[in-house]
């Protein structure tokens, strides 16, 4: 059977908002996070970290620390030189482009290039002793000048992060379609802005933690990671160990948001130490360490040009992005900005697109994936620019969007960059949004409130994002150049008594795979999700898989589960047919039973079939193999492109500059819902993450490269008091890419949110002459705009060019404050 239409034929568990299977232990305090693991004889590691942003190490004296009571060992980077077979990995090698890639070791060797870089490690039987002794390690540094501003880093004469490269430029990467330059020169209207996506932190509430256990044959790493299989693959190279001798386990993981999509130095370090000492070794990050040395995200400056006709048709987008990559590379560091390129068109039919990316070293920690990774940045500039252009043309922002949407009947739509958007109905989600938000009523209310001194504004964001990573050949070595593939595995095993276990190569950290994947499998097997257990995150349990990030788990991993379960269903039907003396094609799965089409009295349950599969009756033909277990490796033919329309309503206190989000309406389309409750949850959290970036969160370094925002006191996550109840709705446009028809939704809210906030605040402050703002819209920044009132302070953050060639480039300092990072 497996007719490939994705139909389930069993019960209709898919589509139901059933409660999560993962919750009962978590609400009782019975979760199993890495820091909860205590092993016999376990040592605790404390890392001595650099207080310098750029320095050579003259000497390290570990004697006093080593002599401290209770200390078992102290090692420097040089001490461990023979324990690592190779440096940490960066996996982007784009064809035809050279990337300056510095060697990146778990502990520094002779020099430090950012504050927080690990210099030595102290091991003791308890954490307190290890931390005490780590303060006794004496390191002499010769301080060198640091550079923290990426634009300054590109100037001649800037201090160099890595002298050997002779430049701070890491690489340039470009892609274009159509002729953007020609379209700009012929345009009626050209709008140019300098748009900053400032540096942020993933900041899951669980800090990173790793425990390595070398007792027995090989070594086990328990780690708070989104990518256990990739981690094993990479670490086998770093440690010089055969992959089969390493087991990586991601137990309960307390949120990731991209920060745990990494193979970190500390993971390699605890593995090496456990091997060296023959005892389990644990390292748990403090929050300050997380802010300092768990990778950051964003930190891109985009000079964006939009060209349009007077009638409001956008004709070209041209962008140059400067990405501040920090001092070293993580797995994907130089690629993150570029990752957004497939959706540079946004939701719009724009024929000419030109993108140029420049990566830059600075004396800061590395940037890498944080929720959305590249797509929030692109979406931010597109959606802010649509509002800027609407203002320029005197058009309503919704109307300008309408005039440019890709039509619902134009899919698959090929963008000028050669990307095929799979399916969409952008006007449909905006129409539905505007059913919830009566714009005329809002404008009257807004006018009344302004009479009373309340500055209320509304902002729209109509987004499309690219996820379901990924068609391996498109992004692999001969495609975009990642030294990886992105198919996903699933194994479905029906046990002799008729319950089932699903093994997925994805690795959740809050998304709800145990529930959603059980629903998918249950329908296809004819079981209740209660009797389908979903396992993940253990390289010794199931086949290799590529993990959870890029909103890929459902569209690639869930699809793989569906396909494996359909293979099991095929075999179950063969067994059933043989025992009921019918043809396999006459067996149908209906109402949880395998029955002969037209003769529902002749039927078997999965319990009966599983029994026959494992203890075969003589009636079962011998050419049917025993057992009931199938594996699927699914490599998608295309990405999937979720989309939606969000509206944000804010009140701005013009005395204090404080912005309050008073209403949020989200209409999202991620295809047919597997579990609508889980979708809503992802949207709520995703939007809140975006609100955080837009209003509160920013990683700040001072001019010497000292991290200023090293704790939750300085790095402000939104609390319950800062967000409203979210109004969510959906449309369902199936993707033709997979049988389930699904698209991802884990990052959509974050991708959609920031421009909606910025557009809303700009709308609120329009009567005060504010026309353009960069994030984060902290009270101080908002007040600066209000007080600048259209003067140089307000324009410094974006050069405004009203009509082609009429620049105001000299109207303010060339560089705003956010690049170097003061609040």
């Amino acid at each position, binding site marked *: 059977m497996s007719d490939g239409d994705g139909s389930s034929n069993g019960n209709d568990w898919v589509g139901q908002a059933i409660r999560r299977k993962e919750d009962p232990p978590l609400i*009782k305090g019975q979760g199993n996070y890495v820091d909860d693991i205590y092993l016999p004889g376990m040592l605790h590691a404390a890392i001595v970290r650099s207080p310098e942003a750029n320095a050579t190490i003259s000497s390290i004296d570990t004697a006093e620390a080593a002599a401290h009571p209770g200390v078992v060992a102290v090692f420097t980077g040089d001490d461990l030189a023979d324990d690592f077979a190779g440096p940490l990995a960066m996996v982007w090698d784009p064809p035809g482009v050279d990337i300056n890639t510095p060697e990146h070791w778990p502990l520094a060797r002779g020099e430090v290039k950012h504050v927080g870089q690990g210099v030595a490690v102290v091991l003791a039987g308890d954490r307190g002793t290890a931390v005490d002794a780590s303060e006794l390690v004496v390191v002499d540094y010769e301080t060198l000048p640091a550079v923290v501003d990426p634009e300054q880093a590109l100037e001649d004469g800037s201090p160099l992060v890595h002298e050997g490269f002779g430049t701070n430029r890491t690489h340039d990467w470009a892609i274009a379609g159509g002729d953007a330059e020609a379209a700009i020169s012929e345009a009626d209207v050209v709008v140019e802005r300098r748009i900053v996506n400032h540096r942020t932190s993933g900041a899951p*509430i669980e800090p990173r933690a790793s425990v390595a256990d070398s007792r027995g044959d090989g070594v086990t790493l328990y780690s708070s990671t989104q990518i256990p299989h990739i981690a094993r693959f990479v670490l086998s190279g770093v440690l010089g160990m055969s992959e089969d001798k390493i087991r990586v386990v991601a137990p309960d993981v307390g949120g990731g948001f991209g920060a745990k999509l990494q193979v970190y130095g500390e993971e390699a370090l605890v593995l090496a130490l456990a091997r060296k000492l023959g005892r389990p070794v644990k390292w748990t990050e403090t929050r300050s360490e997380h802010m300092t040395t768990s990778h950051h995200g964003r930190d891109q400056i985009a000079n964006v040009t939009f060209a349009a006709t007077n009638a409001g048709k956008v004709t070209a987008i041209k962008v140059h992005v400067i990405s501040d990559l920090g001092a070293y590379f993580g797995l994907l560091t130089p690629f993150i900005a570029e990752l957004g390129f497939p959706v540079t068109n946004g939701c719009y039919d724009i024929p000419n697109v030109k993108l140029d990316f420049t990566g830059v070293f600075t004396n800061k920690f590395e940037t890498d994936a944080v929720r959305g990774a590249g797509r929030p940045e692109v979406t931010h500039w597109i959606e802010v620019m649509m509002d800027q252009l609407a203002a320029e043309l005197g058009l309503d922002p919704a109307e300008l969007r309408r005039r440019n949407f890709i039509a619902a009947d134009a899919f698959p739509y090929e963008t000028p960059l050669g990307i095929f958007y799979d399916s969409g109905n952008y006007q449909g989600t905006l129409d539905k949004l505007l059913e919830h938000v009566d714009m005329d009523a809002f404008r009257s209310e807004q006018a009344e409130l302004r009479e009373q001194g309340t500055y209320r504004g509304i902002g729209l964001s109509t987004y499309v994002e690219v996820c379901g990573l990924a068609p391996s050949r498109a992004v692999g070595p001969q495609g975009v150049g990642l030294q990886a593939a992105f198919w996903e595995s699933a194994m479905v095993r029906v046990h002799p008594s008729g319950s089932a276990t699903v093994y997925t190569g994805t690795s959740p950290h809050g998304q709800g795979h145990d529930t959603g994947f059980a629903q998918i499998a249950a329908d296809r097997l004819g079981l209740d999700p209660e009797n389908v257990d979903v396992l993940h995150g253990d390289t010794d349990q199931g086949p290799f898989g590529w993990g959870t990030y890029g909103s890929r788990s459902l569209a690639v991993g869930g699809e793989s589960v569906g396909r494996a379960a359909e293979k099991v269903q095929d075999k179950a039907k063969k067994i059933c047919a043989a025992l009921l003396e019918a043809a396999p094609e006459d067996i149908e799965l209906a109402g949880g039973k395998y029955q002969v089409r037209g003769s529902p009295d002749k039927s078997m349950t999965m319990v009966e079939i599983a029994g026959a599969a494992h203890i075969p009756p003589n009636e079962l033909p011998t050419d049917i193999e025993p057992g009931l277990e199938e594996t699927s490796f699914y490599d998608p033919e295309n990405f999937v492109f979720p989309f939606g329309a969000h509206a944000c309503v804010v009140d701005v206190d013009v005395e204090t500059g404080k912005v309050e989000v008073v209403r949020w309406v989200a209409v999202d389309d991620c295809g047919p819902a597997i579990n609508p409750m889980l979708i809503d949850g992802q949207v709520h959290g995703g939007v809140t993450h975006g609100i955080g970036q837009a209003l509160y969160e920013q990683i700040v370094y001072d001019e010497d490269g000292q991290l200023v925002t090293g704790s939750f006191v300085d790095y402000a996550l939104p609390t319950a008091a800062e967000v409203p109840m979210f109004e969510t709705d959906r449309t369902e446009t199936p993707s033709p890419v997979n049988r389930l028809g699904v698209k991802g939704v884990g990052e959509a809210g974050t991708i959609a949110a920031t421009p909606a906030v910025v557009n809303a605040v700009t709308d609120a402050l329009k009567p005060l002459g504010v026309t353009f703002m960069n994030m984060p819209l902290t009270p101080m920044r908002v007040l600066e705009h209000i007080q600048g009132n259209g003067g140089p302070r307000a324009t410094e953050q974006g050069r405004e060019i009203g009509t082609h060639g009429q620049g105001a480039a000299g109207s303010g300092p060339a560089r705003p404050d956010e690049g170097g990072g003061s609040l």
Partner: protein
Amino acid sequence: MSKTAHVEITVNGEHHSRDVEARTLLVGFLREHLGLTGAHVGCDTTNCGACTVHVDGESVKSCTLLAAQCDGADVLTVEGLAQHGELHPVQQGFWDYHGLQCGYCTPGMIMAAADLLKRNPSPSEEEIRHGLEGNLCRCTGYHNIVRAVQSASGQAVSA
């Protein structure tokens, strides 16, 4: 270092008599000495609230208190919240309304919410939000946490 303190602490109804390093935080005592790992550590600065427990009936961030300060105290952790196999209404609310995703903030959030409802059995949405302001969640956007608490209080649940 290493001055010790003797503590007599009742946790979830069970009496414990221990000598601990004087600097041991309550959260460390619970996690490392008693193996009660439900209270989590998420920050260094008493911002996140993942370690919230009840001490003598009041909600407390257990990373901010020394175990020695709790000598003689009665401590309730998330592990002791369910009674006779029955989930506490706040736990039930979190499950029914998808009030958790990764689950890391959840024990602290549940303990803070239980304390809130003890002091204010029918809080408004705004009171719930302000009552939980000291507990950070990165996953849920708080929407379903508010609904979970509304449900636990027996009030109408927001859409």
